[in-house]
């Protein structure tokens, strides 16, 4: 009775997704992150000294800074892939941008939790309102906004386009976070890199620096692994949806 009953079998084409042939890459990334994280644990907890004034809590530092840098990196990747998406309009770029932003948000959340935990022992408060902390919080809000744009209803092209635009605009906050302590004089948050040595809490012992770099590397590997994993997961979801739709169309005829 219904015309809608008569769907014809369409020459349905499941869109080509990123080639899955590089199955080696995730493995490599996986092992790299495992090894480097183990190494980081060694360097953090055994190799490097315990900080004199803050004691064991200072160990949080490595995760704190590492996550912050990984978050920055993640947002940068989002930024780049957003531009790429707007130019090339390939779904894969959008997926990268999206997954990277999500991971970035997770890392920012880690910064925003380790920070206060550390602050509790270092400054005896959970939170103070000073530029570095505030701008980091804003960063978090910006990428929450990014996620909200992705939650919009509509076809994926629209969401991809709008969130790409926002990913570009929103990235401007990242350099601001980075330079926040360098522009505003801050009472609290220490600077290590750049002209930090003169500031309170600044400067860093050699072996701590090594541990820092190892943990940076570890978190960067972790980030790339997560990105890779997330993207292939997203692709899988897209594919499943395509097959579902195809199945439906087949059913409908």
């Amino acid at each position, binding site marked *: *009775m*219904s*015309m*809608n*009953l*008569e*769907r*014809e079998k*369409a*020459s*349905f084409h499941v869109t080509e997704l990123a080639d899955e042939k590089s199955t080696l890459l995730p493995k490599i990334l996986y092992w790299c992150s495992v090894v480097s994280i183990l190494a980081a644990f060694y360097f953090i907890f055994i190799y490097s000294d315990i900080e004199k004034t803050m004691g064991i809590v200072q160990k949080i530092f490595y995760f704190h800074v590492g996550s912050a840098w990984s978050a920055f990196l993640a947002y940068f990747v989002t930024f780049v892939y957003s531009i790429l998406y707007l130019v090339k309009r390939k779904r894969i770029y959008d997926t990268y941008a999206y997954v990277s932003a999500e991971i970035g948000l997770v890392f920012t959340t880690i910064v925003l939790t380790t920070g206060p935990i550390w602050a509790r022992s270092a400054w005896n408060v959970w939170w103070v309102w000073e530029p570095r902390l505030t701008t980091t919080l804003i960063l978090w809000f910006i990428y929450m906004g990014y996620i909200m744009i992705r939650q919009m209803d509509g*076809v*994926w*092209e629209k969401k991809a386009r709008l969130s790409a635009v926002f990913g570009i605009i929103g990235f401007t906050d990242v350099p601001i976070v980075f330079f926040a302590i360098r522009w505003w004089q801050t009472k609290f948050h220490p600077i290590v890199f750049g002209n930090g040595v003169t500031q309170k809490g600044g400067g860093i012992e050699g072996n701590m620096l090594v541990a820092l770099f190892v943990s940076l590397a570890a978190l960067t590997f972790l980030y790339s692994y997560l990105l890779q994993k997330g993207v292939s997961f997203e692709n899988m979801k897209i594919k499943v*949806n*395509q097959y*579902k*739709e*195809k199945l439906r*169309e087949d059913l409908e005829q």
Partner: protein
Amino acid sequence: MIEIKKLTKQADNKLILRSIDLSIERGETVAILGPNGAGKSTLLKVLSTIIKPSSGFIKINGLDLKKDYTEIKKMFGYLPHSSLLYDHYSPYENLVFFGKVYGVENPEQRAIELVKEVGLSFFLNEPVKNFSRGMIQRIAIARAIVHYPEILYLDEPHTGLDQGAISILNNVILSMKAKGTTTLMVTHDFKQAAEICDRIIIIKNGKIVDDFRLEERTLNLVTEKYQLQVEGVS
């Protein structure tokens, strides 16, 4: 005039238009028929640059829709389901505004002329928001043709019109046709289609399933062919 090649439109995973090939000559008046949800409105939306095609190639008057859209936008008039009118403006203000946007010469006079043409002179300066459905549709038609377009995309233009307005509209289309305007009209009203169109396209499931010329303007032929294609109609 209009050249469509392998046009597809996909919304998420749903194929709405499946590889449409179509070529329309200057001055033709084409009716697009088809069951509900066939993709007729979507086709017009793609042509009027309101939505982007997923793949395929469209040339209008030799210009590529993807690149020269600013040029193309000047050429066509589009009448979708919604009226595209500013509610709190009067027909006059609406038409003058759109006239200016399209760079029509003497938009004020054009507006008055058009409002008269669609038979609403008495309502020239009343805000559109209080209008009845048919009155809004009349002004929407005037809006679509304010800039003497070379191409007209009409999506069910007869909805809500009374008998008088239907003949006004048909006359407008025919007189514009006489001046060489190409018209694409989506409709469910076979009578009107048979009356003013010289070519019928039937779309079903996002594909063109029939395409024939109508030499004699016979309603029966249209109904017959439609039945044939869309038989077992919903």
